[in-house]
């Protein structure tokens, strides 16, 4: 599987390039202070970003060549593509606004998304009949690009809040901002803990009743919460501290709940360590980085990225989705949870765009909305897939 190796290597290289590019974008902060023209660091950073993006394209195309279908058909493939779309959104908006700080925040978010993606099974899998359609490529890529551009509005909204929210004393706003940043740490916690135990190749098998049958489930993390009424089968594995409550429904509910607990633990520990080192709120520590950015400009980029992303999302997530659903199932709209959450996302950004017409909804309020909006997108990707699984349960 020569080509598949090339593919995963290209993805890894892309990830590394984004990391290095972030460091260079970080270096531009000092440039800004002394003079207004673009320094060398900024040029290097954007060049590395573009090479990284091309490398990720190589991953995408070679994987497509191996599987014979566009690699957007499971959680790993889709989420990776979403990360790539976020980078694309960044490149588009950078080309227009030339704001280096954007890279400093957008690329780490993209990296978290890509790393998060690789925690899911990465084997190439064949397509079930319902996915065998060119509309898979058309619908899913358009949705992801729309979401990626909308993701930039989240990044910029977050930057706006970090810059503008008062950090002198603890208050409601900076607490909420801190919660948003803490959630990012949970993702990092999930990535760290999952890769560590994957590296150690930890496995524990359980048997548990599912409906009328007995199902088995494999844990890749030591079980804090075992499956409901589950029995540990693997010798030498840690036995669970408690059982997953019965109202957690569905296949592998125990393993998902257990992963959630581990992510919260690991994320909290990481967050705690960082807080201990810097001895202030993360938001307060980041605030000085954005001293030289104009709040007006951030507000505008945020609005623009919604204005650009919204039509793309509508086209991919509602219109192309409906066309495919009509071909595959004979109904273009079926109130499946994933469809409903796409509609909710659409409602939300429609409300955002209408609120932008009113006085008083620019700036901070609008930035909070941009953050919540991307929260809805991630909810649709993570919670709807893993908890409310419907027809889209495969991805």
């Amino acid at each position, binding site marked *: 599987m020569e080509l598949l190796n090339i593919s995963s290597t290209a993805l890894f290289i892309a990830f590394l390039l984004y990391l290095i590019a972030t460091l260079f974008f970080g270096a531009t902060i000092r440039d800004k202070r002394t003079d207004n023209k673009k320094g060398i660091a900024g040029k290097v950073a954007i060049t590395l970003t573009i090479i990284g993006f091309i490398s990720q394209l190589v991953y995408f195309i070679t994987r497509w060549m191996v599987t014979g279908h566009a690699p957007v058909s499971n959680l790993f493939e889709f989420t990776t593509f979403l990360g790539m779309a976020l980078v694309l959104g960044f490149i588009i908006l950078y080309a227009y606004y030339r704001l280096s700080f954007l890279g400093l925040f957008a690329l780490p978010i993209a990296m978290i998304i890509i790393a998060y993606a690789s925690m899911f099974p990465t084997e190439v899998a064949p397509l079930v009949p319902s996915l065998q359609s060119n509309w898979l490529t058309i619908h899913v890529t358009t949705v992801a690009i729309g979401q990626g551009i909308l993701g930039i509005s989240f990044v910029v909204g977050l930057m706006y809040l970090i810059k503008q929210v008062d950090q002198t004393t603890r208050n409601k706003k900076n607490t909420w901002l801190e919660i948003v940043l803490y959630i990012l740490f949970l993702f990092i916690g999930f990535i760290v803990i999952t890769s560590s135990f994957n590296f150690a190749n930890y496995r524990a098998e359980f048997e548990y009743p599912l409906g009328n049958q007995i199902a088995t489930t494999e844990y890749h993390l030591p079980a804090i919460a075992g499956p409901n009424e589950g029995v540990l089968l693997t010798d030498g594995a840690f036995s669970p501290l408690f059982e997953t409550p019965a109202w957690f429904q569905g296949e592998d509910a125990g393993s998902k709940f257990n992963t959630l607990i581990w992510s919260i633990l690991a994320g909290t520990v990481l967050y705690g360590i960082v807080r201990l080192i810097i001895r202030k709120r993360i938001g307060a520590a980041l605030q000085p980085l954005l001293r030289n950015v104009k709040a007006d400009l951030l507000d505008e980029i945020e609005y623009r990225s919604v204005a*650009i992303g919204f039509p793309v999302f509508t086209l991919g997530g509602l219109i192309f989705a409906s066309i495919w659903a009509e071909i595959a199932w004979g109904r273009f709209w079926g109130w499946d949870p994933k469809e409903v959450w796409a509609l909710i996302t659409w409602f939300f950004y429609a409300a955002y765009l209408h609120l932008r*017409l009113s006085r008083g909804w620019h700036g901070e309020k609008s930035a909070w909305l941009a953050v919540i909006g991307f929260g809805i997108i991630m909810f649709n990707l993570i919670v709807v897939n893993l908890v409310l699984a419907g027809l889209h349960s495969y991805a």
Partner: protein
Amino acid sequence: MKEVKCDCGHINPHGTVLCESCGKPIEGNQHIDGNDNHKLLNMRYDGTARRSQTYNKSIIDKIWSFFSSVKVGVWLIILALIASIIGTIFPQEMYIPAEAPNRDPAVFYEDQYGILGLIYYQLGFHNLYSSLWYMILIALIGVSLVICSLDRFVPLYKALRNQKPRKHKSFLSRQRLYSESDAISEEDYQLIKKNLKKNRYKIVEENGHLLAEKGRFSRWGPYVNHIGLIIILLAAILRSIPLFYMDEYVWVREGQQIVIPGTEGQYYIENKDFILETHDENDERFREAIMQEGSVPSNFQTDVVVYKAEKSIPGAKPELNAILDDSIQMNAPVKFDGYSIYQQGYQLNEFTNMTFKLHKTEDAEEEALATFTVDLTEPESQYELDNGYRVILDQYYPDYYLDDNGEPASETNFPRNPAFVFIVYPPDNTEPEVSFLGIGRNIDATGANEYKLGILDFEMHDVSGLIVKYDRSLPFFGIGAAIFMIGVIQGMYWQHRRVWLNRNENGVLMAAHTNKNWYGIKKDIEKAIQNTDIKMVEDQQELDEKG
């Protein structure tokens, strides 16, 4: 209602906020757009007279004002959003999983989710999206779309057509981008004009005053996309009429030919074969995934023939003419005469018929005294066998299981696991004997039967689940969606930019306005005034100052 005459001589309709011609704020109307407490003018609708803001006497005025408010529109969207979220907390009735112990919604929700599930069911949230109140909510959004658009579009259209380059100073100085410069030379003026033209601005001049404008058509984007949405909502109403929409789910056995429901006996369908294929497990690419997840289907297909019934005489048996011989696959429906058929479900290995033999219980060779075949789709109640034997089919369980009381019962009506109670009558008129027979079961009720039945042979078939439908509302949805996309792109990817340059004896006033992308218009102005003595406009709205 009386009209308002501005100092510039232009006559404005009642309720105008900013003079349509010179832009001067009209006294007494500034509260309408909230200009009275702000330095900057609200330019959203160019200060035009909108019905909703002007008349508030009759009940119709009040309803109009209510629905024309963007605030109300946003609230309706938020309500629809929250309602939609509620509908995803638990599965909707149609998505109750097939493997649920009890799929009756009255039982399912309480069973699975406890008291919350019960409340969910009792509030009707299990059918939320077809509930009257949800539909009313969506309809109200539709009403709001129509009224909002009409309220604004007409006056805005007129105002943008009437605008003049010469503006009142109080209009210019209260724009977000504004500068005052000393008088400039004619060359500078011409240079600016040339630069703006080069940037594809349309220039209108009047007595040395200048208006440069581009992308006005983007202002119509919102109205265009609202029209698209209204068409989509109307299409949804059409779809609820049987003339526009019909769908039927039909199960067809292999070899079976049945009338297609919903076609008034006009069409018949025959299932020639159902095919299920799986991905090759030896495919090197997928081996690992298949090993972990089990075999993956690659194709669901039903080979069908569709017949059209020609009835020469009413009541007579119709003559069937094959009009379609095709394969239906997932993602590849077939069409005929305006109908479409979709591959939706399947059931493998149902029993078609079973052949039994009768022999003496003590006969070790089990030599057949007689054989008979039961057609499981149409079982008979009695079978006359060779040699004078007679068998009565006393009970038939197509899908046998033992119910909660330990009684034999049938789980479905499909012959997936058939079981039978036979009564055997020997030729010599001795006492009849009762035998219970199923797959892997052969029970003699008394333990003293002289004769025994055994399964000799059986045939099986698959069943295809097909959807037959027509949806004549689809073109309307398509048109609505296309118009929506055009409108939303028109409004979002272009911006309406205007630059005013007014010259008087004291100098030059420059102001600019755009509905979005202030960064872009500033760059345009920077380019236009390069190498001239005019001052760059200042941004009078700095968010930094507020925070």
